[in-house]
């Protein structure tokens, strides 16, 4: 991994800006299979938060049910977490962040969790623009229940004991785009650097940031020819750009040739820098993103990167016009109107 400008590499034992070392961001030992893509993603979440110096107490880890949904256990022991019901992570997250918008929610889901049983919640959380990072650890199968096809499995894929999948896969990114997502990225668990930079940007996005990360299931679907395998990811990966998230105050230090870089400013003053790679791609145009996805599906390649960014839609807490103090911190005074108010109000029912 080359050390890029803005890629704030910190040595694990060195305290970050808030005095925590990397271990303070770790979770319990993983009980997932060795080599599972989900484990790589967990590592990058740990790394990103450590490097961003975010206090773990400000994070809530949210998930549904599945191997992927177990992964919050393996990160951030000092953060609160909620391993909810299969498919329902978006709903509990909505409730939690609405009553405490000072928390940053990281939702971790699987393709079964998100694209089947929880599909409608996924679409709605995006539509409402609930402030959260929404990670789909996409392996095309139901890992935890032992290898059935998920809705993102390739058409024609054959799995042992399951048969051939006759249906077209659901494209999580397309779905997010159609539902009005302002941050839509696709990445690959085998590309830790990109995953980490995308995570950093996602965490600083004010609404729902969707990350569809191809995360191979080594036990049930890492076979030659599967678009969710390591081999496919490594050989067919086409990064759209080299992406870097840059904190506000570091902006000055970034030196890149003009013309080669697209810079998108975020609401909190940080920036995302897109360094041009093979083709020219404008991540602020929704239709191009859709077209790109359609095309890359036809070409059988894995385009990765930040497909679309647009911070115009207000996050749900703003839409709902909430007071600044998190609702859970309001005192009884603010929550319960006075006796006089009751007595006066009740008059209308005389």
């Amino acid at each position: 991994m080359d050390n890029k400008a803005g890629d704030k590499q910190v040595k694990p034992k060195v305290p970050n800006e808030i005095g925590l070392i990397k271990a303070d961001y770790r979770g319990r030992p993983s009980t997932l299979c060795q080599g599972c893509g989900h484990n790589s993603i967990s590592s990058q979440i740990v790394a990103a938060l450590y490097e961003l110096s975010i206090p773990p107490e400000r994070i809530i880890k949210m998930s549904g049910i599945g191997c992927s949904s177990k992964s919050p256990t393996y990160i951030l022991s000092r953060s609160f977490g909620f391993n909810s019901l299969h498919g329902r992570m978006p709903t509990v997250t909505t409730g939690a962040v609405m009553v405490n918008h000072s928390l940053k929610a990281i939702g971790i889901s699987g393709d079964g969790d998100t694209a089947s049983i929880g599909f409608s919640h996924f679409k709605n959380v995006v539509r409402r623009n609930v402030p959260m990072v929404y990670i789909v650890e996409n392996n095309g199968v139901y890992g935890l229940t032992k290898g059935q096809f998920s809705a993102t499995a390739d058409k024609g894929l054959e799995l042992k004991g399951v048969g051939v999948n006759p249906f077209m896969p659901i494209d999580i990114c397309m779905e997010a785009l159609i539902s009005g997502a302002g941050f839509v990225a696709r990445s690959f668990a085998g590309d830790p650097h990109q995953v980490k930079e995308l995570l950093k940007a996602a965490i600083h996005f004010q609404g729902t940031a969707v990350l569809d990360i191809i995360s191979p299931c080594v036990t049930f679907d890492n076979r030659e020819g599967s678009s969710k395998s390591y081999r496919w990811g490594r050989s067919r990966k086409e990064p759209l750009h080299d992406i870097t998230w840059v904190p506000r105050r570091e902006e000055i230090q970034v030196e890149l040739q003009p013309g080669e870089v697209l810079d998108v400013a975020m609401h909190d003053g940080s920036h995302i820098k897109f360094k041009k790679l093979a083709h020219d791609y404008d991540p602020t145009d929704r239709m191009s993103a859709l077209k790109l996805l359609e095309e890359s599906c036809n070409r059988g390649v894995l385009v990765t990167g930040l497909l679309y960014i647009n911070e115009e839609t207000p996050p749900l807490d703003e839409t709902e016009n909430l007071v600044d103090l998190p609702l859970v911190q309001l005192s009884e005074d603010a929550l319960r109107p006075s006796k006089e108010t009751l007595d006066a109000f009740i008059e209308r029912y005389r």
Partner: protein
Amino acid sequence: MNKKAAEKEVQATDAAQEKIVNDFSMVIATVNGSGSQTANLALIRAVFRMGVPVSGKNLFPSNIKGMPTYFTVRANKDGFTARREKMEILIGMNPETFDEDLNDLVEGGVCFYPDQFKVPGTRDDVIFYPVPVKQIIKEQNPPRKLVNYMRNMVYVGVVSEMLGIEIREIRKALETHFKGREKSIELNMQIVDASALWASENLVKADKYVVERDHQTEGMIMLDGNTAGALGTIFGGVSFVAWYPITPGSSLAEALQSNLPRLRKDEKTGKQTYAIIQAEDELAAIGMIVGAGWAGARAMTTTSGPGLALMAEFAGLAYYTEIPIVIWDVQRMGPSTGLPTRTSQGDILFTRFLGHGDTQQIMLIPGNIEECFEFGWRSFDIAERLQAPIYVLSDLDLGMNLWMSKPFDYPDQPMDRGKVLTAEDLDKIDEFARYRDVDGDGIPYRTLPGTDHPKAAYFLRGSGHNEQALYSERPEDYEANLERLGLKYETAREYMPKPVIKETDGATIGMIAYGSVDPAVNEALSRLAAQGVKIDYLRIRAVPFTDEVYEFIHKYDRIYVVEMNTQGQMHMLLRLDVPDQATKLIPLTHNNGLPMSAHWVTEAVLELEGGNDGQ
């Protein structure tokens, strides 16, 4: 009966002179969507403000426009407000159902109707007042698009005149309704006045029913249980509501939607101290409040049977992970989609066992609108104290109909936020274990997400966990946890509203009921007492039961359990708890979508005890 023809008859019938004061059911039969609500509310409000006890019930179809709808005003000097099976006064505005509607009039009853209807020959024991609705409207010539709607004001005027409902109270009622919008008030009053005048000039009173001023409702209020519940919720400090529309649960959410901005905006900024979200479905609605409850908010949803069914999985999660939330189930007729606009008490058993695998859910059951208000706020105290989902089981009759009440009491205690550890608390203890029974009452301590302390965090899950909330499949851990939950259920009894007991001297029979059947039971008991059948009455207000319930059961030879469902659901729950008294409990169930009537209860008891009811 027109004036001329009547005059003679009047002299003939002395009966007509025996007035019946403040005691009738008046049914207004209209067509859904015909805009009769303003008229009906004006009538009931006027009677109410004349000091006469009333209740108002809307029997409406699951449909928006064009189907038969009935609004019943029951006025009763003794304060009985239950549904009656018969009526004394019919305002028959629906040609489709007119003939059939007449069947339910008592002998000597009264029928007001538009004069173009043909009266069938079936009821010569009834007094008919034809009203020239068309003609009056034509003469008054209201704006064209209001013509249909104004037809309703005609009967307001005529009926008021004939029954002695004061026109100035009608005016005041309209002033309330239109919130002072002068033009609307005047337009309506023009029709009312003209109609009243027409009646005074053209109709002769031939019936016995009159409204006379009284003082029984002084200081009282009148509203529906869902609004009462919403207000209670607001004064309970709700800060998060997620819901999905469903009759009859919706109007509680809608009352929140309209009243929260009035009562709970931050004064300085005008921003909201609450969030209310219409979810994509009921699964999402309960999911959201589970998230909010976990994060430390007072969170609630409101639904009805089909929605409750969809919440079953989350109900189990909330129970097992011990998250305080409040779920209002405004019951409607089941099973399945059932009759969405009819009432029932059919969700008792389903709620009690909601969620697979040994759940024991807690229910509060309001019996009147005061309790809708009270349980509105108290449910949060109980939920946070017990760290458990609390189900408030109301029903359509209570929730969507109009009831009198004394003004609601302000909460008599500060909010109970339960066992929450702050960062400072954590400093003082060695170890925090989310699911440890520190106090021996089965209720563990919790911390709220965001608590800024290295010991604060835990990972919540619906699967196996030990005291530290760590994943565990150890049989011992599981058993210990379930045992503690059982203990917590016992502890819950302490926090449950106690039953309301009404004792009579010398009764050897008991009756148990709950919820909206209360008025029917009260009325029935007084009728039964008149027949010499003395019965003591206990109204359940919560499950699990408190000791008073068991004690009550032990005291009597037999106990009737009256409820509006098919299986006798509360009866079953009672039986389970008192096996040695099981045979003493006799189910009296009635379940056809209509609110319980005193007549039915009386008859049912008399059939078993001997005797019969007059109605």
